[in-house]
């Protein structure tokens, strides 16, 4: 692995709620290299999206706050930058696409205007040049009749089209990093595959690093180079996709992998029930001293309830936070 392009180091994010302080991100460390796809997986509410927002400097505040840690892009510290400096980073160095293509585009501007806006902001382009780039981007995301579609309003496009437009917006200024937060969750299965193909193609052309946030293990297996598994605000397992998927160490990761239903050409008459992980994600305000997964874990030992396991190397660069799986 080359020197990381973007590194998230020991980041803690706290939310003040009526029910008390919620530690949404608990000493999260991630890194992504140029040209790499890093997958982040986990159930809803495990901190995947919050990781993305903290990289973007968009943690809603109040009530949220990056309490400690550092986020560096090519060595430049992003935590603590002024709002104006962050505005320059967003869109220009880091692009982001969201999971709700239906509502993520502003209904009162044409899609061309929305793509051109970030070009005008970050590259001081003339309106005409920016619009030309917008059409070019629409072509790049494989939207037919791009010059006509640039004049369309979001409500005139389908969900898949809108997500392509979102990708065009995020990539308009050729950012170094693209964060894709569940980019296909709201789309039809066939459209999902198209969007993933598109992301892969664009990535191989531009060399942009991608952070792909999803709960779809299949997408991770297909697209990502490395993967980080998150649970209750912590990274519990991290490594290359091959090692993590073929030899998961953390019981939660194991559970996630076995939960994925497999397509079988000739299903048996009596099907085995799909395995599931018992229990639900705990409330972040109610985390105790120990491992957050312990209440749902089958391999629990006494130590699990007493202290949080550190993220440590198990096999080579493969890291796991588990007392039982430890080396």
């Amino acid at each position, binding site marked *: 692995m080359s020197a990381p392009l973007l590194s998230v180091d020991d980041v803690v994010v706290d*939310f003040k*709620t*009526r*029910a008390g302080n*919620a530690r949404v991100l608990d000493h999260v460390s991630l890194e992504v290299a140029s040209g790499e796809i890093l997958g982040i997986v986990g*159930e*809803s*509410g495990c901190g995947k999206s919050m990781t993305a927002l903290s990289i973007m400097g968009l943690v809603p505040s109040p009530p949220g706050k990056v309490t400690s840690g550092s986020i560096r892009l090519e060595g430049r510290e992003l935590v603590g930058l002024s709002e104006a400096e962050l505005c320059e980073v967003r869109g220009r160095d880091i692009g982001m696409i969201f999971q709700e293509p239906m509502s993520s585009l502003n209904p009162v501007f044409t899609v061309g205007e929305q793509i051109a806006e970030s070009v005008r902001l970050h590259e001081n382009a003339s309106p005409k040049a920016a619009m030309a780039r917008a059409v070019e981007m629409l072509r790049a995301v494989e939207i037919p009749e791009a010059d006509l579609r640039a004049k369309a309003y979001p409500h005139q496009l389908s969900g898949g089209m809108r997500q392509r437009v979102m990708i065009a917006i995020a990539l308009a200024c050729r950012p170094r990093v693209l964060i894709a937060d569940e980019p296909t969750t709201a789309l039809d299965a066939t459209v999902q595959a198209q969007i993933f193909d598109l992301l892969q193609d664009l990535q191989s052309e531009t060399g942009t690093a991608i952070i792909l946030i999803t*709960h779809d293990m299949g997408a991770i297996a297909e697209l990502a180079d490395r993967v980080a598994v998150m649970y209750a605000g912590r990274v519990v397992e991290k490594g290359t996709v091959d090692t993590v998927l073929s030899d998961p160490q953390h019981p939660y990761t194991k559970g*996630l992998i076995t*939960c994925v*239903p497999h397509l079988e050409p000739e299903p048996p008459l009596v*099907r085995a*029930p*799909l395995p*599931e*992980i018992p229990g*639900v*994600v705990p*409330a*972040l*305000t109610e985390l105790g001293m120990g491992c957050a997964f312990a209440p749902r874990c089958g391999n629990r030992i006494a130590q699990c309830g007493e202290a949080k396991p550190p993220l440590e190397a198990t096999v080579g660069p493969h890291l796991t936070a588990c007392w039982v799986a430890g080396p």
Partner: protein
Amino acid sequence: MTKPTEMIAPPEAILAEPPIKATHPLREMAVMFFRNYTAVFGLVLLIAILLFTFVGPLVYQTDPFEMVWAPFTRPGQDGYLFGTDYLGRDILSAMMAGGQVSMAIGLAAAVISIVIGVTVGAFAGYYGGWVEEVLMRFTEFFQVLPTLLFSMVIVALFGASLLTVTFAIGVVSWTAVARVTRSEFLRIRELEYVTAARSGSAKDAYLIFRVILPNALPPIIVQANLMVGSAILFEAALSFLGLSDPNVMSWGQVIGSNRPYILDSGFAVAIPGFAIFLTVLAISLIGDGLNDALNPKLRQR
């Protein structure tokens, strides 16, 4: 038996508060209402005003039309709490008598406008089609006429009595109620329990008044409450303009009749105006509280 894979907890689960115990909806509503300090303040204020206007005259028996002392007596002077007006009439007793009239007209006019509005809105929303078209055009027609001008004309043509004033206010201000009722009916008539009742060949009248209307009530109640407030303001404006029954004391009339002398006795105008302000304020605070209590989902707004 295969249970569905419930891997993904809904996002609320993370920061969720402990579940609230199920209670009777009315009771829950009352709890919500009384937890809202501004709404309770409004309620207390309204009760105080009602006591002042309806119980006050039993204690303080002075004819509001009688000249009792020198004109323009300042408030507090010579034993007159609110002073006297340009004719030397006691403003305190005028405030009590006027309050009764203002509130009675406000309430009666609001009832008229609610009855018209709910009827028009319910039929438009329930039947849809050409009935809705006709009724909504009718409503739109009333929205185009400046309400105050229209009611001024009615009062002028049919004479300024309590009855015509009340009627003139009620008959011009029902459009908002009709719009609210119609949109609620449009929403509710598509719900499953209505479809179920409809397929059980229930009569239209039964569906409208027994099935849909009770469920449409919350926003109508809130709107009705606001109607009382605006009817009081409406009556005040009419009597300020000199278009009310000259033989009946009302807050607006105290203001209207003392207006030429505001530089000598500003208090004679300021006091009844403040009374109207407090009353309408109390009513709208209660309305806001009801709104929050009846729409718990909107509580955060």
